């Protein structure tokens, strides 16, 4: 049984133009650990991401109060245990004042359908299997990255940092249908459009392209492909097989998105 609940504390976005980003409850809350005073859950890995998304939205609205191209966050449960704890999830979310527009209570079997039904354009989780399953069904998905800083005490909001790459090893396993409404290209185009709202040096959204293997020819092609989608990346790294961990540690992206470039 799947249900969607609106968060009445948050202004609902224009469904047409908004980019729906789904985050799992397991990624957002450390379940089982309750804040003593309020009886709500403590925040986990996805919190800095939500803050960064909020920052992007605030900056977009600052530029144009009538902006409809905003990031709309959907909090989704992906297992039956959390599915049953809907009221606790809602109260924890409201308590922390998180900019979550909708809640979706689904289980392991039903969450992918929920993602599709809710027009989710990016699904973020800390669970590799979930990311793979969703990807295979055509929902652009990514793993949330651990942050260096202690996220729960962060008072200054970070920019949203996105790492685009082609992790071709995992690509071999996923088989998204070309031309699907939920293809990665659509998400990238929206991301690019949001980036275009800001200037080169003053943006709350930062997009990095990382070519893990392959030659500079690869890299040139990818840059051109992204440009044709309307995506102007901010920095680009062609690693030619060099280890990516040191780069990851410097860039600190919120998530790494597999672009699934089709040649």
């Amino acid at each position, binding site marked *: 049984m799947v249900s969607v609940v609106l968060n009445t504390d948050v202004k609902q976005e224009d469904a047409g133009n908004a980019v729906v980003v789904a985050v799992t409850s397991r990624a957002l809350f450390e379940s089982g650990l309750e804040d003593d005073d309020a009886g709500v859950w403590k925040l986990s890995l996805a919190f800095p991401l939500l803050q960064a998304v909020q920052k992007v939205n605030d900056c977009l609205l600052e530029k144009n109060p009538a902006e409809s191209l905003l990031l709309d966050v959907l909090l989704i449960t992906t297992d039956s245990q959390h599915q049953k704890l809907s009221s606790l999830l809602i109260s924890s979310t409201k308590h922390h004042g998180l900019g979550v527009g909708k809640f979706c209570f689904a289980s392991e079997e039903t969450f992918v359908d929920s993602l599709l039904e809710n027009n989710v354009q990016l699904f973020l989780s800390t669970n590799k299997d979930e990311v793979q399953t969703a990807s295979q069904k055509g929902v652009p998905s990514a793993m949330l990255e651990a942050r260096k800083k202690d996220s729960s005490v962060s008072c200054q909001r970070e920019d949203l940092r996105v790492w685009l790459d082609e992790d071709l090893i995992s690509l071999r396993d996923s088989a998204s249908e070309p031309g699907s409404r939920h293809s990665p290209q659509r998400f990238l185009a929206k991301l690019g459009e949001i980036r275009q709202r800001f200037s080169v040096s003053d943006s709350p959204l930062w997009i990095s392209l990382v070519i893990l293997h392959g030659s500079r020819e690869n*890299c040139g092609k990818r840059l051109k492909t992204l440009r044709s989608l309307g995506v*102007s*990346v901010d920095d680009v*790294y*062609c690693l030619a097989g*060099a280890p990516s961990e*040191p780069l990851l*540690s*410097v860039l600190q992206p919120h998530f790494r998105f597999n672009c699934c470039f089709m040649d």
Partner: protein
Amino acid sequence: MLQTAAALSVYLVGGFFFVLGEHSVPIHLSGLSAQPEGLSMVKMSLDPVQVMSGQVQDIKVSPSSNGESRGSWEEKEFDQKQLDQTTKPKPPKPENAVTIAVSSRVLFRTEREQKVYEQKGVEEYLRYQVEHENEPFAPGPAFPFVKALETVNIRLRELYPQSEELFDIVLVTYNHAHVGIRLINTINHHNLFIERFCMTGGSSPIGYLKAWQTNLYLSADAEKVREALSEGIAAATMFMSDKMTTVSESQLRVAFDGDAVLFSDESERIFKAHGLDKFFEHERENEDTLLDHGPFKGFLEALAKLQKKFYAKGQRLNCPIRTYLVTARSAASSGIRALKTLRAWGLEVDEALFLAGAPKGPMLEKIRPHIFFDDQMFHVEGAAEMGTVAAHVPYGVAQLHSKKK
């Protein structure tokens, strides 16, 4: 240090050999032609047995380390997952290669674009770059050096087809990714073998350059060079020059200053604080104490390691890498300590030039190195005036004093 030339007047004109094991290091002196007492003039010859007479005789000459490692080098197989079919050789893993990071502003000439940036701001600058995307940049001061590195790689691959012990050139720029396609087009145009690059959009690459065991970083920006040096990466600032003499296309030649480049700046500190006499006294007293290492010791070591790969295949005379020490020290006195230190480190340079304070420009013009590293701008500029590509190492006490003329 020009003042010292007049004060000392103990130079030889000519050269003589100093024996280090089986390999002779030709030592050149230049300057005034007054003959010192106790030193005799020995003509330059290829006879490896000739030993210098005079003060230098008390140096114990022992067989050096260059003959022994003729055994097989660790040859690792490539096992990278290369996903595009290419006939080009695959780039080596960073830990195996000698990694040279070069900034786009020194590999290519970008003055016109710099002007656009300075006069019209970043947005206009990027628009200009994209507009001119299909126009390759012209070669910059580091270009001949990089080409020479590639020549060495070709020779290394011939001798050791499976080895990853090669030069690996990484292009690093603080430029925004908008310039990416133009840079890639430029690399293609000049047929450079650069597969690894970082266009950071403004953030510092030093963190991962360090993790990738970068052996040398060349940039036009002294601040970035200082940052690299503070992280233990040999780094130097390069400058645009109108005059560039032609250099060898078959042999990589790298020249190093001694103090504050290969060695620490301890002796320079003494000289700056207490003058020349104190400097000589200190060097004499400490002749048998090794100098501490400087920021470029590691890079010389990396070059020496590759040289040995050629020697191991009987290519000593034909070695496509040649190294030079070009120092203001004098062979008869303060130079001894430098040579002893190098020997103790198991390092050699192919040629040691002890100028005893004479200007370096003319000597460098004769050697024609692809690059010369010095910690003093005075020498860098002097070299550049005569067409040598010289890079400044902003290290040590010399940076605190304004240059003397």
